[in-house]
């Protein structure tokens, strides 16, 4: 039995939508359906080809809405990393012959929902649960509170500074300046980040991701079928997932995420080293999140993330292009941003990114982070030349 997914499957179609206004016209199932239609069109496939569906809330409900009868279904929800997990599961299903064409879709419109009065607030789940019992009484603001705690610990152990975290926001904004669909495109400085209002210390407003509408989808099929399609495919070279807690007070070490497991595992499967990576799409819910990815994935040593991001190393023209669409910090962040990591990684490998295109991109990593640094899922994608 095969123990690797390397080269078994490929992403052949992607779509996403967001807007500089932060809002989209459509929402809910209509928006999800539009994303699937666009991703299938991008792939040169039809809905009738789809025999697997991934959806982080209800794959069954979504398949019913589309009127399809998939033989592979996955409603895994690991928060923002759900879509990297879907990609991993889809590749495994395709490799095992459980499905041939799998779609994953995401849409959320928190910004226009609020204006339109759609949806409700957070409803506490019935009955005992650890979060309500051991954390809610202390009014830790979600989602930034747990990340602020992680940043405080990282600063204590390694001397990381707010200026270093700010460098990540500055570099990411420089990428957003090259993306016409990004929410915020005006350049910012380290001083701008440090003078933006403090939220949960040590995180300032500009250390935090956006709240926008956004949606996306990807289509994955077998490598064999991918070669028969018109657009260049992004092949799955490696995929791995790990979670080590659900609530932050159960996180074993606030300076090391389970990406320290998923990252090396995915890189090992892919047969690549950090130096081989053309670009990193590393979930930037907060600046500290991206910094932890750089360490846990092995781009630098643990504790060295602060110095690593200095002098624009992850900015346009830097040695490690990171979050080239402008990231959750400046492009879009509807809540579970992991879908957009994959969409951008695929577009970069296809050379479709215009001004922000990374020259000669061959290997792209989409590294999703779910819940409160809880579930990391690493997807290594490559062009056909990397197989």
């Amino acid at each position, binding site marked *: 039995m095969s123990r690797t997914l390397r080269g078994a499957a490929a992403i052949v179609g992607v779509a996403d939508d967001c807007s500089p206004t932060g809002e989209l016209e459509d929402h809910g199932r209509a928006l999800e359906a539009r994303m699937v239609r666009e991703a299938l069109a991008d792939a040169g496939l039809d809905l009738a080809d789809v025999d697997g569906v991934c959806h982080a809330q209800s794959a069954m409900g979504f398949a019913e809405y589309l009127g399809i009868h998939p033989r592979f279904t996955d409603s895994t929800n690991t928060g923002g990393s759900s879509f990297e997990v879907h990609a991993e599961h889809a590749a495994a299903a395709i490799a095992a012959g459980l499905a041939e064409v799998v779609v994953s879709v995401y849409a959320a419109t928190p910004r226009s929902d609020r204006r339109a009065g759609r949806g409700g607030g957070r409803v506490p789940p019935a009955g*005992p649960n650890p979060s309500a019992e051991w954390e809610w009484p202390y*009014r830790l*603001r979600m989602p930034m*509170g747990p990340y602020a705690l992680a940043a*405080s610990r990282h600063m204590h152990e390694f001397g990381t500074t707010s200026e270093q975290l700010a460098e990540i926001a500055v570099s990411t904004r420089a990428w957003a300046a090259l993306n016409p669909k990004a929410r915020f495109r005006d350049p910012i400085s380290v001083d701008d980040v440090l003078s933006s209002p403090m939220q*949960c210390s040590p995180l300032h407003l500009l250390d935090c991701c956006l709240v926008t509408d956004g949606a996306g989808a990807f289509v994955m099929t077998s490598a064999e079928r991918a070669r028969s399609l018109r657009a260049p495919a992004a092949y799955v070279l490696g995929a791995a997932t790990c979670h080590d807690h659900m609530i932050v007070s159960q996180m074993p070490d606030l300076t090391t995420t389970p990406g320290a497991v998923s990252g090396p595992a995915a890189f090992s499967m892919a047969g690549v080293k950090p130096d081989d990576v053309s670009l990193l799409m590393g979930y930037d819910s907060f600046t500290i999140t991206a910094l932890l990815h750089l360490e846990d994935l092995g781009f630098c040593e643990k504790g060295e993330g602060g110095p690593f991001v200095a002098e624009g190393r992850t900015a346009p023209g830097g040695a490690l292009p990171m979050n080239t669409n402008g990231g959750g910090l400046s492009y879009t962040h509807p809540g579970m941003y992991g879908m957009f990591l994959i969409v951008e990684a695929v577009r970069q490998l296809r050379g479709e990114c215009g001004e922000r295109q990374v020259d000669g991109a061959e290997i792209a990593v989409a590294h999703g982070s779910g819940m409160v640094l809880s579930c990391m899922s690493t997807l290594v994608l490559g062009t056909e030349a990397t197989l």
Partner: protein
Amino acid sequence: MSATGPAAGPPRMVGPASPESAPFWEATRERRLVLQWCRECDRPVQYPRAVCPRCMGSALEWREASGAGRIYAATVEHRPETMGASEPYAVVLVDLAEGARLMGNLAGDPAAARVGASVRVTWEPLEDGRHLPLFELDKEAG
């Protein structure tokens, strides 16, 4: 009871106890901090469970805790109004001397919430006679 910070806001949202954690909350009526321990591992189990998350053993018992610990991580909420509170407050993760980690608020000046600082448990009354464990700086421990 702290006059400012979270206590100055509306009543705290405290979730219901599980069957396994009920002894923890009952002890707070007497302002006693108790921890569930696994007799096999001789280590605390926090949060309380029906089985030990290390060995899956069910030989669990309750022991008194010292209430002393150190701040492992800390944040100050600078937008307290977003959480229904009126003044900035500190949320801390505290590593207790016994090896368990608890979230809490630091009573008093939130600016004193520094990682590594020694703290002791203190108690805030809840309406039903239980108490919520919080922490205060332990100046004697330094």
